[in-house]
């Protein structure tokens, strides 16, 4: 039950993130979750939006380098130790997390987090085995 993340290459240049957000906003695309990984000379922006297809087309048409990445959105108890409990399971099963970040909104009283695993298949299986709820694409779109 993967959801779609859009990854965008961003040069460390003034106003570049603004350009991108403005572009999405002008096209009626809403950002649900966002994360920026940065290095000395460039950054990679990762977003989950309500209209992925339109977003990727709009970005590419405007000269951005972007691609679609399958990620997993996990529901986590919004209480102390909630995230630790999930990571414990992953760690015990040797699932490596490439990166993760949180959603702005919630679908229930639980927090939503995006996970990108080194081995996406294995990560999904482990989560299922341990009865950790994975959000569906529909649920995300319905936020």
């Amino acid at each position: 039950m993967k959801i779609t993340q859009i990854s965008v290459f961003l040069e460390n240049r003034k106003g570049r993130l603004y350009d991108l957000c403005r572009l999405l906003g002008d096209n009626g695309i809403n950002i649900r979750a966002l994360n920026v990984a940065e290095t000395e000379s460039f950054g990679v922006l990762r977003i989950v939006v309500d209209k992925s297809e339109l977003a990727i087309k709009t970005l590419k048409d405007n000269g951005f380098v972007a691609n679609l990445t399958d990620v997993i959105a996990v529901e986590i108890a919004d209480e102390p130790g909630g995230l630790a409990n999930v990571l414990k399971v992953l760690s015990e099963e040797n699932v490596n997390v490439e990166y993760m970040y949180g959603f702005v909104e919630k679908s229930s009283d639980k927090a939503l987090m995006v996970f990108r695993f080194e081995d996406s298949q294995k990560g999904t299986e482990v989560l299922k085995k341990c009865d950790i709820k994975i959000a569906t694409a529909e649920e995300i779109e319905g936020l």
Partner: protein
Amino acid sequence: MIWNEKFECMSPQELRDVQGQRLKELVSYVRYNCGVYKDRLASIGISASDIKTIDDIAKLPFTTKLDMRDNYPYGLFSADQKDVLEIHVSSGTTGNPTLVGYTRDDIKLWSEVMARTLCCAGAEPGDTIQIAYGYGLFTGGLGFHYGAIEMGLRVIPTSSGQTGRQLKIMQDFQPKIIACTPSYILFMAEEAKQMGIDPAKGNWKIGIFGAEPWTEPMRSEIEQSWNMLATDVYGLSEIIGPGVAQECTHKNGLHIFSDVFYPEIIDPETGLPAEEGCDGELVITTLTKQAIPLIRYRTRDIVSINYDKCACGRTSPRISKIKGRTDDMIIVRGINVFPSQIEHVLLGIEGTQPHYQIVVDRREHGLDYVEVMVEVDDKIFSDEVKKLEQLQQRIKKEIESVLSIGVKVHLVEPKTIERSMGKSKRVIDKRFL
């Protein structure tokens, strides 16, 4: 002092006679000993008997860097490899490097022209010289070494790098002369100041700087910070290495040792002689070399030439500082860099586009550095920073192994590299030259 008054102060007519005679011998020598020249001269029907005066040089074909690459390794050699005592290799434009070699007599010639160079700059026997040009495949270090020994200097062969140690040696042995690249001497001045050493407080007399382009403002800065006379040396490995031309203490052009390295200034488009005193491409014929003599070698360096007798007494003509290049070669810390080398690397890395830009800059009072911008496209882009950094590192490593200098690689967004007439502007040289 003048090392070889006979040749350096010869009357113009006598010099022309010597040059004409030597050219005749050269043509005869290469026609007999070098397959490439034999075929070339035979195809245009030229033999030694066609050379009456030095002006007959215009009948001969040019030799280019491409010829050196195409005939790598030994095609342009005239001497048997068993008589070659030393070889030097430098990077070529793409593919094959440039190989040069020296027989025992060539080493003697190199020692002679470098002794002339050092004397021309103002060195006196007994002076101490710190040679901070790289020793090794680069011809700078060894060329200076041979000449310094020949004329009787005390040599401190520090080679390049290890700046702290260079400064310690300067303080302990108080050399009068230093030879290195102009950007390195400025870098050393800064390092000295940071260590609380005043570089001007030494026994300095002369600096001999070359292997990269530099400017009059840099000269003033070097002279002030080191309290020395800063002179310019010119050379290229294809001709001999350093020792082709050198400024005298009047600093009014570089005396080219034209009895052995015959200069012509041509229009690079037509190949015809440039008008006297005007800028053109410097073409050099090595009149007396044995291992790999070159006829009318196109240096690609743009200079002008002045045949007037100099106030120092030398009659050898003077070339100007290098005013530019006829190709896109850039020189960084003494290393020749061709944009095509970088293109070659990028084409070899799967997924990268040959859209790149080279930015060369000089830190204030410091060394030149190179940054390579490479455009990222969908094929190589990844959501994982790790993978992009690995790619960046791989490009860096491969470029560095080809160029032999450190570079910084930046991944940039597509279409951000300025394109002129559809073709990217490959090189941005910001070194206020």
